[in-house]
């Protein structure tokens, strides 16, 4: 009963008559187990509530935004493609299907304009939803990449790319394509680009997007590129094109994990 201490303190504020009312509320909340609802001293009574089934949407609200919704659905329900696997994005592993799909798409679309691009890089925080097995709609791709970010080609020194790899290791993996590495004690080792070991003495062409190239997500290695080219193409548009072309070729998305970033075992 001591756990009711805070509740009892509140009683000081009430006249005897009103105490009963407050007690009534308390018993109403906590008839099963008092300790469940009355936290220790200095914590308020805490309850997690679910609304009941009679709580339906306010029809004036539904009517108010119905015209917007109709326009949105007309544009967003269009099926762009299909995925045979759940493109998931768990945060406790260095490589994910969603991250691979995203970075692969970025690199493929970047290479159409710059065939000498060798790798791509995005960040986990930029991928806003997972894609479930089945159809991929316009709406899905808008929600995956809602931002108006535009693609950028950066020419980086080998040293800068090493810095980027160390950032990727320190943050336990990020979406990449063309780059492979292992993470040992928070450091990147065995780094390869397009199948060859990283050479500090040469430069590399990397596809990413303006948010990251401008310093977003505190990534490292991108701030002093040898050169920068803005592609004038939104990341989302690149994803739509990538998925659409797979569909027109009669293919489904079937991204697998390929060990591009692993923990050193």
């Amino acid at each position, binding site marked *: 009963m001591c756990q009711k201490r805070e509740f009892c303190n509140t009683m000081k504020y*009430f006249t005897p008559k009103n105490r009963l009312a407050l007690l009534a509320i308390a018993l109403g909340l906590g008839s099963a187990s008092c300790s469940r609802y009355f936290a220790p001293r200095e914590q*308020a009574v805490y309850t997690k*509530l*679910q*609304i009941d089934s009679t709580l339906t*949407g*306010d029809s*004036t609200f539904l009517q108010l935004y119905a015209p917007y919704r109709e326009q949105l659905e007309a544009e967003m329900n269009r099926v762009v493609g299909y995925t045979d696997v759940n493109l998931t994005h768990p945060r406790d592993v260095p490589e994910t299907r969603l991250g691979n799909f995203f970075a692969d798409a970025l690199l493929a679309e970047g290479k159409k304009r710059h065939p000498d691009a060798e790798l791509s890089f995005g960040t986990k925080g930029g991928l806003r939803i997972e894609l479930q097995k089945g159809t991929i709609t316009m709406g899905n791709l*808008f929600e995956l990449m809602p931002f108006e970010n535009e693609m950028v080609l950066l020419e980086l020194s080998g040293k800068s790319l090493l810095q980027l790899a160390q950032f990727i290791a320190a943050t336990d993996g990020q979406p990449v394509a063309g780059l492979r590495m292992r993470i040992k004690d928070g450091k990147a080792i065995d780094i390869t680009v397009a199948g060859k070991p990283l050479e500090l003495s040469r430069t590399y062409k990397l596809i990413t997007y303006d948010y990251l190239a*401008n310093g977003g997500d505190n990534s490292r290695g991108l701030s002093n590129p040898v050169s920068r080219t803005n592609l004038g193409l939104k990341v989302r548009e690149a994803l739509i094109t990538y998925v659409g072309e797979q569909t027109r070729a009669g293919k489904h998305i079937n991204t697998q994990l390929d060990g591009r970033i692993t923990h050193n075992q």
Partner: protein
Amino acid sequence: MEGLPTINRRHFLKQAGTFGTLSLLGGIPLAALANEDHIALTILHTNDVHSRIDPFPMDGSRNQGLGGVARRATLVERIRSEQRNVLLLDAGDTVQGTPYFNLFGGKVELELMSKMGYEASTIGNHEFDNGLEGLAKMLPYAKFPFLTANYDFSDTMLKGKTREYSIFKKQGLRIGVFGLGIELDGMVDPTLCRDVRYLDPIATANTLAERLKQDYRCSFVICLSHLGYKYQGNKVSDVVLAKNTRNIDLIIGGHTHTFMPAPESIRNLNGELTTINQVGFGGINLGRLDYVFEQQSGRKELVTASSYEITDGVSVWNG
């Protein structure tokens, strides 16, 4: 339990009956506060709703079917019908995340929040996603203020379009509300927030909270924070803010999308408690904090804290 009359259940039910139906929605029924000296205040809050106008789609994902602005509106209306003093607040990132924002630029989100009677929100990092121009374009659709004290917009087109704080009066009670935003560097593309000056959140908060308490005689000071709940290291968060300030009673947080299992109270520089609460994201939950104020003594107490999960579920009380 000192001073409490012992009471058996049957007697209690009889007594409870004299006060009318107990609220199914929780909190303190008005009947419990017949005494003029006591004022009940119900604070309802959301954060990081991210343009989630419709409930999450039924696609097998974790949050399918949850949230939705129309059901939240019904819930808020019901609570307003039960409580005299309600304050409906949001902690930023109202936009970005569904095509409603891509297609309509924030108009739908802010019009619906206005209709629901939101009384204030703050500027989160995603409010900058269409640049200062995009933000300036959408703000007129909000009939409530965007409160932000540590983004200095005076050299930008947003000058005069936001406020540092607002004071709300409920049954004579003065409640000061101000807003704090997260560091822009590394978070918002510099081309989208050009010429915005970022001011130290802790110094800003201390100055403003003191002014609200001392000069403007507010009984209660709320910070709408988009700093984030807690980080590893020294990065300023709601927890760091609470520990290093005076005069803030409540921090309604956002940014980190944290589903806090319960509000957290932390001793501030005055040795008083500053309470932090944050309710996830996407409008999945509506947070609710019920306070009681004693007019004469100036004492206040958080009596109940709850969060409603916006779902089709049938369980009313689900501890």
